[in-house]
């Protein structure tokens, strides 16, 4: 269960104090596939950063399975990211000098899995997202956009996280591939009982998720 209460995030820039999120509250149940929509600058990525413990909120709380991640120390937040959160980025963000298999193995290493079990687990994950054994040994530069995003999803699911945070997961893909990726995420949320929170511009995709939150000027409007 993900519970966000009165979350506010302010930045200071040259023009003064900018409030990116204003008193945001939301709840997503375990295994739910939710989407966040909104225009550019509405605070979607900032919210995702807070939920993923990549940034610290100015005020408010974020509880994941009863633990307030806003109050964790830096090292505890790192551990939280490694074990409880999976990230899927718009531009995949795979490590370019590592193969698809090694990218997934790296996440397993950070999650604390014993070295002897990592390879088998990574192969199983890549297999489940539809990458062949040959493709698993390729570096990201030799994989298509859709294949890279599949690797990214496999990496996000590596440590059986409580939440997968997806930032525009289909934004860099053609519509057909984007649909396949969405279906994959949807299927995994069901099979792995993982909570998925995806930021998207695509209203068709948002419409197929269990719940949709609309952000406008840093506030939840629907």
């Amino acid at each position, binding site marked *: 269960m993900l519970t966000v209460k009165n979350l506010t995030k302010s930045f200071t820039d040259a023009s003064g104090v900018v409030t990116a999120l204003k008193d945001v509250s939301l709840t997503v149940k375990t295994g739910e596939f939710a989407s966040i929509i909104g225009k550019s600058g509405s605070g979607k990525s900032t919210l995702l950063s807070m939920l993923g413990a990549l*940034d610290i909120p100015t005020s408010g709380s974020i509880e994941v399975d009863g633990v307030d991640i806003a109050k964790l120390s830096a*090292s505890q937040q790192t551990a939280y990211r*490694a074990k409880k959160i999976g990230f899927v*980025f*718009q531009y995949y963000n795979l490590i370019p000098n590592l193969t698809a298999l090694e990218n997934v*193995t790296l996440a397993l290493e*950070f999650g604390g899995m014993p070295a002897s079990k990592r390879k088998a687990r990574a192969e199983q994950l890549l297999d489940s997202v539809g990458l062949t054994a040959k493709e698993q040994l390729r570096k990201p530069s030799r994989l298509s956009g859709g294949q890279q995003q599949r690797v990214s999803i496999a990496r996000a699911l590596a440590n059986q996280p409580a939440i997968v945070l997806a930032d525009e997961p289909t934004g860099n893909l053609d519509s057909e591939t984007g649909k396949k990726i969405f279906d994959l995420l949807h299927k995994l949320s069901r099979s792995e009982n993982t909570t998925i929170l995806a930021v998207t511009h695509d209203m068709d995709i948002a419409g197929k998720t269990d719940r949709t939150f609309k952000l406008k000027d840093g506030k939840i409007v629907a």
Partner: protein
Amino acid sequence: MNVVSRDIKNAFRSPMRSGAIILMLAISIGLILSMLVARTSVNSKIDEVKSKTGINITISPAGVMGFSGGGNALTSDQLATIVKTVHVASTSATLSDQMSTSDTNLTASLELGNFGARQMRFESASSATTNGGSTATSNATSADSIDTRPAPTPRTTVTGTTNPNSISTDGSDLTLTSGATIDGNSSALIALVGSDLVAKNNLTVGSTFTAYEKTITVKGIFKTGNKFQDSGIIMPLATAQTLTSQTGAVSSVTATVDSSDNVSAVITSLKTALSDKADITSQAEVAAASVSSLQSISSLALAGVIGATVAGAVIVLLAMVMIVRERRHKIGVIKAIGGTNRKVIGQFVTEALTLTVIGAIVGLALGVLVSGPMTNSLVSSSQSNTSYSTSTTRGGMGGEMARGFNRIGSNFTQVTSSITPQVFIIAIGITLVIAVIGSAVPAWFIARIRPAEVLRSE
């Protein structure tokens, strides 16, 4: 994939760049090793030269060299000044004289020969002039003078000393073939007699002879292997002073300094205290001037080591800073998916170490190859200066001193480079310092990168 092998592999993501970094590091580390070898070899040679020159300083009355020259003997006050000089551990004073046939009943064991006759020609001429009551002979040619003067007679050298062992020619204690040594501080009418003089006069321990109208008892017989010394007599200093009516006078003092490092300071103090009344000579002083060029090489080598170390550290530092800046986004991703600062820093330190270790292997091999020629080149360039300073100091010195300086001079040509395990360990230590310095600043940069940046740059 193994974590370490993955990080090592990372170091070669850009072969051209890694190759350039390794090459620059290798040159830098090769230079460090070469300079360390040169410095160690030169320092070792400096120590060797210093140890050979000893810690003795000879103080003679100004203008006097052995039985040559002229001037006033050193006084007891001057001797006291020498004894009280800081860092002077001990002194031995001597007063030398030569006995003619009118001073002793002993027959000299040294033959005059051409050399001895020439040394005595002025005194003989003076004697002939006095006897003949005319100065005409002083205008005659040398050959004529020798022909017309009475034949000169050989003399017997008497050395009064506070330390009979100082007469030994090899630096060790005087070798007695029979009898016992004498107390240099006594004033008894006793003597040690050289083996050649003993043989010439059929002396034994306990027998007596006449010197300066006094009866002297033979206490011991010594043999040095040096014909001049073995034809002489050694007495206590006070005895010699009394017999020759030169109370308190000293013709030579040897001061032993507590450490070779203090020889220069003692010489300076003595020159100040005794002013122009004494000539002060020391092999160490001349050697110090001669080794100054080697010390310059040593300093130059140290500067080279420091410079090459700084250059190496800067090369690794800049390379790693460049790599960190280039991979800023990747570092953000790694942190976002759960990578700790320690793991990410560890990866970059491994990369820096990999580049440094490969650079070190190539550099050390390079250093082994060039250190010998480089040391020889550095030393040979200073050799001409050394030869010059040696030859210029030789003219004013006595034979024994000059031979000593020759030995010192020849040592400079024998500086050999050698790579000792110690030098190798130091070079490897410096290499590690380079890697640590080269990694420390990038590590600081890495720790400051926030994972949120990975989303902002999307």
